[in-house]
């Protein structure tokens, strides 16, 4: 095997009471903060820039560069907001990280705040993960009690408060400007950019918004240095990342590996596709990234290679589906999600996702028309690049890519229901007998 796992964040997940400050400190925690506080703030920014760390929330924007966009201090407040609204379908890395080792995030936030001159940082965590909220609240309390938060942190003269903020159920709040509006007590709808958050973010002040895993990776970079981080990954996609395998795989789970590992290698580690089946399609980074097939097993999972192969690395949410799965059913369900989560602010996304779903539902029911595939592609063409934020773009990705690789299944949707072609009980992980069949719903065409 060419590539091995590189546990950094996961390295304490299997320790006793891994979520406590005591365990975190016993395993090297908060050395990064001590080292950072002994450095000039600008040098910390430089170090993270040099490490090549890129945003782990999906877009892959260089983290240190994002910090560097903040204008020069003007005496007013500057904010760090951590995006812990993990909601992209298939993405399941930040939530387990925050349950197992929330102090990685807290230490990263303190270091980052020091680096960018922030005195009040926020964690925006989605509201649908109660125990994560408890663990974060407790870890913030522990950090205050230990002198890592509050005034004059570790005698450095640096002050920082962290506020934990719960969302209330809205995928769109993972978009950074919608998140900021939500944090300001408004409906979570994206803002027009520019101005970017770095210039006018939370309360119209300079703001850095970073993903949980990005910030949690900072303490290691500060301890090990930029060159340590760059020993992992590829030249332009450096470092370690959590790869989340789910679906029809023998041992789904979290695998922390250098960027550039391949699905073939990860599947070897995870015991392969479930027994007796073969890979049909997969997402490299959540439902908003165009799907891949078995022909992409050897694409290095780094930002450049995945992009060159026609998709996006996204959040490394590897949702694996075997040959029993109807791609039309999968794509229709994702489209239901986008239609439901569209915030309604812009017309292409609000109306487009609605109509996409109308067409897909009749294809899934085997009642599509011969013009439906072209209609879908035309709708996607009118959404992609014309929506206010990335939600609209993301909604088109599964559709256009699925038609590209599995056009015949969409064509079959003009005469045969998806659940006749692909009985859902063959895809499920347990045996059962479906009660309602699409064939009955579809009637004469079945």
């Amino acid at each position: 095997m060419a590539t091995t796992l590189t546990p950094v964040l996961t390295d304490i997940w299997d320790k006793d009471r891994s979520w406590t400050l005591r365990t975190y400190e016993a395993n090297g925690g908060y050395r990064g903060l001590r080292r950072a506080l002994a450095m000039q703030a600008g040098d910390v920014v430089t170090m993270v820039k040099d490490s090549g760390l890129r945003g782990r929330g999906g877009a892959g924007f260089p983290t240190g560069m994002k910090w560097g966009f903040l204008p020069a201090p003007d005496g007013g407040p500057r904010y760090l907001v951590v995006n812990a609204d993990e909601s992209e379908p298939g993405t399941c890395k930040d939530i387990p990280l925050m349950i197992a080792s929330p102090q990685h995030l807290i230490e990263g936030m303190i270091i980052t705040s020091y680096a960018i001159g922030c005195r009040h940082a926020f964690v925006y965590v989605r509201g649908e993960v109660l125990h994560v909220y408890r663990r974060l609240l407790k870890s913030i309390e522990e950090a205050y009690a230990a002198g890592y938060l509050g005034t004059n942190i570790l005698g450095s003269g640096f002050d920082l408060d962290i506020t934990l903020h719960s969302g209330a159920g809205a995928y769109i709040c993972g978009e950074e400007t919608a998140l900021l509006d939500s944090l300001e007590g408004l409906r979570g709808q994206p803002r027009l950019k520019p101005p970017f958050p770095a210039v006018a973010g939370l309360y119209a002040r300079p703001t850095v918004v970073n993903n949980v895993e990005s910030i949690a990776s900072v303490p290691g970079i500060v301890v090990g240095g930029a060159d340590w981080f760059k020993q992992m990954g590829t030249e332009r996609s450096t470092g370690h990342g959590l790869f989340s395998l789910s679906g029809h795989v023998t041992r789904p789970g979290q695998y922390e590996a250098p960027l550039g590992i391949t699905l073939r290698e990860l599947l070897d580690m995870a015991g392969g596709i479930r027994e007796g089946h073969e890979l049909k399609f997969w997402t490299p980074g959540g439902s908003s990234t165009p799907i891949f097939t078995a022909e992409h097993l050897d694409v290095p999972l780094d930002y450049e290679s995945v992009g060159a192969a026609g998709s996006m690395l996204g959040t490394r949410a590897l949702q694996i589906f075997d040959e029993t799965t109807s791609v039309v059913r999968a794509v229709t369900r994702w489209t239901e999600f986008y239609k439901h989560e569209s915030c309604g602010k812009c017309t292409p996304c609000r109306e487009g996702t609605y109509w996409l779903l109308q067409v897909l539902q009749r294809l899934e029911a085997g009642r599509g028309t011969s013009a439906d595939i072209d209609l879908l592609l035309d709708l996607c063409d009118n959404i992609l690049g014309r929506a206010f934020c990335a939600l609209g773009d993301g909604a088109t990705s599964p559709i256009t890519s699925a038609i590209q690789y599995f056009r015949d299944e969409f064509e079959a949707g003009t005469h045969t229901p998806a659940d006749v072609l692909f009985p859902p009980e063959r895809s499920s992980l347990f045996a059962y007998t479906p009660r309602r069949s699409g064939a009955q719903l579809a009637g004469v065409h079945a």
Partner: protein
Amino acid sequence: MSVEQVPEARTPGQTHRTGYDDETRARLAADAAQIRARYPQERSALLPMLHLVQSEDGYVSPRGIAFCAAELGLTTAEVSAVATFYTQYKRHPNGTYTVGVCTNTLCAIMGGDAIWEELSDHLGVGHDETTDDGAITLERVECNAACDYAPVVMVNWEFFDNQTPDSAVALADELQAGRPVTPTRGADSVCTFKEMSRVLAGFGDGRADEGVGAGEPTLRGIALARQEGWEAPPFPGGAEAGKPVAERPVASEASTTTPARGTRTTKAVGGSHAPKPGAEQSSAERPATTAGDVSPEQQQTKQQSDDAKES
């Protein structure tokens, strides 16, 4: 993020149109003051305050909306506009337990659709409807970030992993019988909808140390790494910079035959030979050569295109 449908049957409940009594109002006002104190600007308190209202009334009641408006100097229309945007804010009295079946693509295909059918038939309610005994409000929920545990059911937003139709029905029966249930990953028992809402408003219930740190799928990568003796590159300076040496597991036989970690790296620097940050040749002193050091104009252009795609 539950999937919207127009409910056909709603549980009759209190309408809460009359406002809080003095004692309740004083108690909620004290809580609201604590919430406001967390933020530089008080309007930020609105989302947690709506959770607070749900902790009192079991949904976002008309009197709760009026309370938030009065506390924050907003109109009731402004508060309602926010409350109706987010699916966790319930517009009619919720059951003691929200049971959410993930029916997003991954869970649905792994069996979530079957679980939904079974539970909906068993309980006799549809999406966002509540059983007659007021115990369970059933929901179809969107991806809850536990795909490696699919199919997933959430009870008051605690994880019940790797469910089947049978296990989900048994779970619902326990809830309806008033017996405590234990999530796979979460507190030792599931609290009520109102208790949960109070935690989400930012008032801890002292239960953070209950439950596990991780389930089996979460630990599969690290377990494999331990078995194979795989580690990330050591920090420069070894134990001095990183964790204590004693904490490191003994590398197994396999590690001796395994190529260097992250072998795709072509210019890996030997861990012990890497310069210390701040020392000569360290990254902190290197000249401006990376993409991060290019002109501000280029950075701005790059960010505009990249941020447009950011989620």
